[in-house]
């Protein structure tokens, strides 16, 4: 994606040819197969796709949070010019939480059930912020300082009774509140990149909207880069400046949100958009993409979408397409469409 770097905007995160395998008993799951992505500073970027297409794996790779039995086998991830994958464990720890944070999907399970919320949040200040020595040495002062900080950040994410919440345990909070705690934690150390990994999926629709608004506001106020991982196209349309569509561990299409929704190019994206029920155009049967999600232990050869693709040609099964810029700020991963749009840029 050398074209992208030439863009006037600053690239804050540049993923190149990322490959991640999971070594399970059933075989090697090739979860990511050469992901190329550039994310610009200050934008909100969406990552969409079906379950199991590798969205979460991509963002977790960015923070090097891939756990056993997964392994990053190839690729480079540049954060401000440094390859994250080549950093030492100690150095990456300084990035995590401080420069990049992640808001996880399920607020029920991602908070430690036996530690008070205030304590869990204040850990962020403790490890990522320079605290004056006299405060650090004095236990009373330190806890007072931390509490102030936590209350401050709780107010920012609009958690009510912040001071009182400090001593509470996760199970005593509602789902929305817990999600706010997670968000509070993620912005506590003032990071450059906030990754929301299905951050609203587990919530009620009304709470979802509140959280999304909150995130949007935070992004605007703080001017941070936001990466949105979701399978909900509505959220993407609402929140994101640019979108990448993933399919079976490969990127199908990258475009600005509006362009993607108005004029999708990749056949998978087209199918995906058609399958959304629309209130103003009710149909008897929703359109669906035939076939099933590929088994990533033995993925289809060539383009991984080809067994389900309506435009399938012989070359699709034989050769993997490249991610090619077909329109300004619009990349597509498809032999047929690339030919169609050739020379239009």
């Amino acid at each position, binding site marked *: 994606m050398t074209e992208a770097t030439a863009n006037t905007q600053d690239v804050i995160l540049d993923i190149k040819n990322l490959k991640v395998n999971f070594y*399970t*008993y059933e075989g090697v799951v090739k979860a990511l197969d050469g992901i190329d992505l550039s994310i610009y500073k200050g934008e909100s970027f969406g990552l969409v796709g079906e379950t199991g297409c590798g969205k979460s794996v991509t963002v977790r790779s960015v923070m090097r949070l891939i756990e*056993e*039995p997964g392994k990053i086998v190839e690729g480079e991830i540049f954060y401000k010019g440094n390859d994250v994958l080549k950093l030492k464990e100690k150095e990456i720890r300084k990035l995590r939480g401080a420069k990049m944070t992640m808001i996880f999907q399920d607020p029920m399970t991602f908070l430690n059930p036996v530690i008070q919320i205030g304590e869990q949040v204040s850990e962020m200040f403790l490890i990522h912020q320079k605290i004056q020595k006299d405060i650090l040495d004095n236990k009373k002062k330190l806890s007072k300082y931390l509490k102030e900080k936590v209350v401050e950040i709780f107010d920012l994410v609009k958690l009510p009774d912040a001071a009182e919440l400090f001593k509470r345990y996760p199970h005593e909070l509602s789902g929305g509140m817990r999600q706010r705690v997670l968000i509070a934690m993620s912005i506590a150390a003032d990071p450059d990149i906030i990754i929301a990994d299905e951050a609203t999926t587990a919530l009620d629709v009304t709470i979802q909207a509140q959280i999304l608004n909150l995130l949007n506001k935070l992004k605007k106020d703080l001017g941070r880069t936001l990466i949105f991982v979701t399978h909900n196209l509505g959220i993407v349309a609402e929140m994101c400046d640019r979108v990448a569509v993933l399919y079976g561990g490969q990127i199908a299409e990258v475009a600005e949100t509006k362009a993607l929704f108005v004029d999708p190019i990749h056949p998978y994206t087209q199918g995906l958009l058609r399958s959304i029920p629309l209130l103003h155009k009710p149909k008897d049967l929703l359109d669906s993409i035939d076939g099933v999600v590929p088994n990533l232990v033995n993925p289809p050869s060539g383009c991984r979408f080809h067994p389900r693709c309506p435009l399938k040609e012989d070359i699709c099964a034989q050769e993997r397409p490249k991610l090619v810029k077909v329109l300004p700020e619009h990349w597509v991963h498809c032999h047929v469409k690339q030919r169609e749009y050739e020379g239009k840029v």
Partner: protein
Amino acid sequence: MVSDTEYLGEEIHEDVFSFRVSLKARWKEIRYAISLLRKSPLFIIGFIVIVFLLALAIFAPIIASYGPREFDIRIMNEPPFTTDERTTLKWTGYSSLSGDFDLDPDLKARTWVADFTNNSLDDFMVGTASTDTSEASLLFFENRGATEEKLNWELRDDYFDMPIPEGVTRVVPTAGDLDGDNDTDVIIGGDDGHLYVSLNKGTPATPAWTAFSILNNSAGQMFNFTGQASPSLIDFDSGEEKTYDNGSHLLDLIVTSDIDANTGRYQIYTYMNRGNRTHYSFGVLTYNWAGKPVPYGPKNVTGKILEINPTTATTGSLRIYFAFINNDQRPDMILMFDSGKYEYYTASSVVKDPQFLPLDKSEASVLFEFPALPEEPFLDFRWTDFTGDNASDLIIFANNGSVIYNFQYYEVDGRFHLLGTDEQGGDIWSRICWALRTDFFLAVWIVSVAAVVGTIIGGLAGYFGGWVDNLMMRITDIFFAFPGLILAMSIAAALGPNLFNLSIAMIIVWWSGYARIARGQVISEKNRLYVEAARSIGMGDMRILFRHILPNSIYPLLVAATLDLGGVVLTAAGLSFIGFGAQPGDAELGIMISSGRQYFLSAPWLVFFPGIFIFLIVLAFNLVGDGVRDVMDPKLRR
């Protein structure tokens, strides 16, 4: 599946058909699990060890050079050996000794052996009754030692020359050190029903006998029996350290009498010696066997009445011989009737409070070998070590004056002892092979019965819920409130300690665990769609439970059972160790350790090898169980 249901126009949830589908899926899962197990080294080690031990158990008859109960007949326990080549005892055939004794064919001999001369060779005291004269005599034969498989006896008129008390026409002698001066004194029973005593006040070599005087009991009463009194002196309550009077180590008196004409029964009287080392004092009648019930006493101590087979009990007098035939260190008893018939009895409880039972020779833990006695009227025999070679010899006095003998000799066995021999002369390696059979079988039997019972009860409780469930849970609560070992111990003790009862006790303790698992499984399974589907087509509860739900809940139970096998082996061995399972002589690893404990400081291998094998079995079962759990437990699977 889809094609079958297509006509409905919609896809039916697969769960509705879950029984067959899930069985198929489970079968796939099992094959998958096996393929995973193949990659786990610890599981493979465990599996190989189990196969190896199982092979030892199965091929025990081939591998083990000795049978499960093949021991030497040793009256005295000897310290065990490691490398000693084992010897077996054999009997020679009968040969005659009539020339040495030269008894009158008219005499009826009643004998007693004791080492009168203190030269470590047993001498004979023969009491006689002549059939045609009214004169009884007491003859002393000194043992001159054995040469070339021949016993030599010499009649010494000068050694014992006390006249027989008047009126006595038939003499039954017995002898032992009564006054603690380290020489042998004589008691005779006369046909007048009295006992007479003569003490040696001299030395063993130059005796000075007191005249016969009538023997009284400690209350000062004369001993008086029906017809002929046949006394035996034996230290009856020795060997038991924990008896309540601390084991007197003094000779006690046991007297048998003629058959009672009125009741038609024999009597055996026991008089415990309540004196001290220098003074004998035979107590009043303590126990009375054979014929008459103990005057009073609650029902559960009636074992003291000995049932004598009516066909053997005919007429005349009864004589009693004590020996240690099996290896339980309790006296065994041979009853000899005037008809020439004889019966064996063995003590089945502590020495102090013995309960004699007919001895089943096939169940004696010592391989019981004893040359058959000729069944002749008025036969008398003695079974002692005459030759001083630590092997018993047998001498038989027949009523025609002939004396025949039969002695034991050692034959070197020549078979190799891989792990040494135990305190009974048994080969430890062989016994371990046989014991593995017992322990494996016990473990599988206990676990499978407990699992089946638990699954059925737990399944019913889980399926029906309500009060059935409540009741069952309370019952399992009670079982969980007791420590398993203690509960099993109590049940085994109440049923009577043996291996079968042990297994029953352990099943009673173990089932509740499976019941809980089964209940949980059934509860989680019974709300599945396929159960509802089955119910909606009118399937019966039992059919749903046993054909559909239980087969789907069986896997966690199987895992639990595999994990339990090791624990069961450990517990069974432990219970046997403290005496609630296997009995002495059984080939079982726990009892091997328990009986080896007597010598374990000087002969550690007695304890070491059986223990190592228990450890191996349990370790192997645990390795296998862990492996199975790891692949079957979705929580731990990655």
